[in-house]
């Protein structure tokens, strides 16, 4: 295994992009990443995408990705692990370069979600759960996380206000993100009084439906030094783990084992402890998810994710800033793009290129955590500026 750096990043403005097609979404971010790296060619492309088939009737992104990014005949591979597809695509590209098979590889992520109505999107997203034993019985994705929330609240005393504080914090951050879908702040009362989706989660505890893409260029460290004058961002840790697809079969309904395992792998590989990390982008698909993720990562002790959110530990100015981008909640959640967009955010923060009023003072080492289904798969990466 050799050292690998991220040398180019691209992300379009996310939202309900009625005028932009799936193919153009991929191409927009791919071209931005190539331009940012100052190169025209790569040797392979990975595309994280959960369900282009159900959202747009289009499969075979292994061709469409390179084709519309103007880089045929390089090989394209679509990577799918539900909402962790982007993180898994990045890891695939990382392994491709680290192994020595290629020097320069692109990892992209995309989801075009608004070509179907709300019912169609709910159906497509539910395919990340167990069709026969969860979805068949009428549970939804918010429903699965709501059951984790109720379990966590009963077991650890996590409060409704602490859940809401995740959304308040992430919208505060996202309002400052020029690429975010929902650039607005929300109050604690707005979150708690929004329409109930699945008790105790309201609409403002849930990440939105989004069209969007992201792309990054990975390059062997030796070659990176001669290609770019920007600060080199090295991939120092990578971890990936699975858990039962059914929530009911997990050892503990209040913890995320796949995330804890993936995080340990990544930290061990990097030779770091969680407190060596300056900031994190994590998978806040629902407010309770961020609370459980920061516990699994060790940013907060098990059961203390709620208090750590409420006391400002994870705020932009806190001891351990989490989701300075606005997270999935405010930035948006085009499922397959999310994991790659986390790498874009880490890279921009480390280079000092984030939006001015949300650039962290100390951002040398960042962690990205991306998660599929109800925590049934999880990917963690750690990046460090050289």
């Amino acid at each position: 295994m050799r050292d690998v750096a991220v040398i180019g990043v691209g992300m379009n403005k996310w939202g309900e992009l009625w005028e932009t097609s799936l193919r153009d979404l991929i191409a927009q971010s791919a071209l931005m990443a190539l331009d940012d790296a100052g190169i025209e060619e790569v040797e392979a492309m990975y595309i994280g995408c959960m369900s282009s088939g159900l959202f747009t009737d289009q499969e075979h992104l292994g061709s469409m990705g390179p084709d519309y990014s103007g880089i045929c005949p390089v090989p394209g591979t679509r990577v799918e692990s539900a909402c962790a597809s982007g993180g898994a695509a990045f890891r695939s590209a990382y392994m491709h370069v680290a192994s020595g098979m290629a020097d320069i590889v692109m990892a992209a992520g995309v989801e075009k979600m608004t070509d179907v109505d709300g019912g169609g999107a709910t159906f497509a997203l539910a395919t990340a759960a167990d069709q026969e034993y969860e979805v068949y019985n009428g549970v939804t994705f918010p429903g699965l996380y709501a059951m984790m929330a109720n379990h966590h609240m009963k077991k650890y005393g996590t409060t409704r206000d602490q859940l809401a504080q995740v959304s308040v914090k992430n919208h505060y951050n996202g309002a400052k993100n020029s690429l975010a879908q929902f650039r607005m702040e929300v109050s604690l009362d707005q979150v708690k009084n929004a329409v109930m989706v699945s008790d105790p989660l309201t609409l403002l505890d849930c990440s939105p439906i989004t069209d969007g893409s992201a792309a990054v260029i990975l390059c062997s460290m030796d070659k990176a030094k001669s290609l770019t004058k920007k600060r080199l961002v090295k991939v120092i840790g990578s971890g990936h783990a699975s858990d039962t697809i059914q929530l009911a079969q997990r050892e503990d309904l209040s913890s995320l084992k796949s995330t804890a395992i993936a995080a340990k792998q990544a930290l061990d590989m990097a030779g770091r402890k969680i407190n060596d990390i300056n900031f994190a982008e994590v998978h806040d698909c629902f407010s309770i998810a961020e609370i459980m993720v920061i516990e699994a990562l060790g940013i907060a002790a098990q059961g203390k994710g709620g208090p750590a959110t409420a006391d400002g530990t994870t705020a932009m100015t806190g001891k351990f800033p989490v989701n300075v981008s606005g997270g999935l909640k405010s930035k948006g959640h085009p499922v397959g793009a999310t994991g790659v967009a986390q790498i874009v955010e880490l890279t921009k923060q480390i280079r000092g290129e984030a939006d001015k009023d949300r650039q962290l003072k100390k951002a040398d080492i960042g962690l990205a955590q991306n998660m599929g289904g109800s925590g049934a798969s999880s990917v963690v990466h750690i990046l460090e500026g050289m």
Partner: protein
Amino acid sequence: MSAPKYWREIPQRYRFEAAKCKKCGKVSFPPRIVCPECRSREFENTRINDKGTVETYTVIRVAPTQFTDEAPYPVAIVDVGDGVRVLCQVADCGPEEIKIGMSVRLEFRKVQQEGHGGIINYGYKCVPE
């Protein structure tokens, strides 16, 4: 839903059939062909208990298309013992009545229907004991 896709789940959905590992005794519901605990591939047929307790729950208020008419409805993860948990709807129980720790019993029920006048899909729900 195609007939085989529905038909092949009938032993589990109608009769609560599960697979008990002959080596370590772990009960898998639905049945598996390899034990997730010890990787043995030998099982004996068993049935899960029809009584259990609610370990966690939610009330679905924004429902999938085929369940829209039933919302709001409670859904629970029920611990039925022997290391088995089952996710199902809670019938004969109002959204305000459901609680963690509540005793319930699994029953054979209609779960959903494919469109107006469509095929009825059966399975299990739990009811307060």
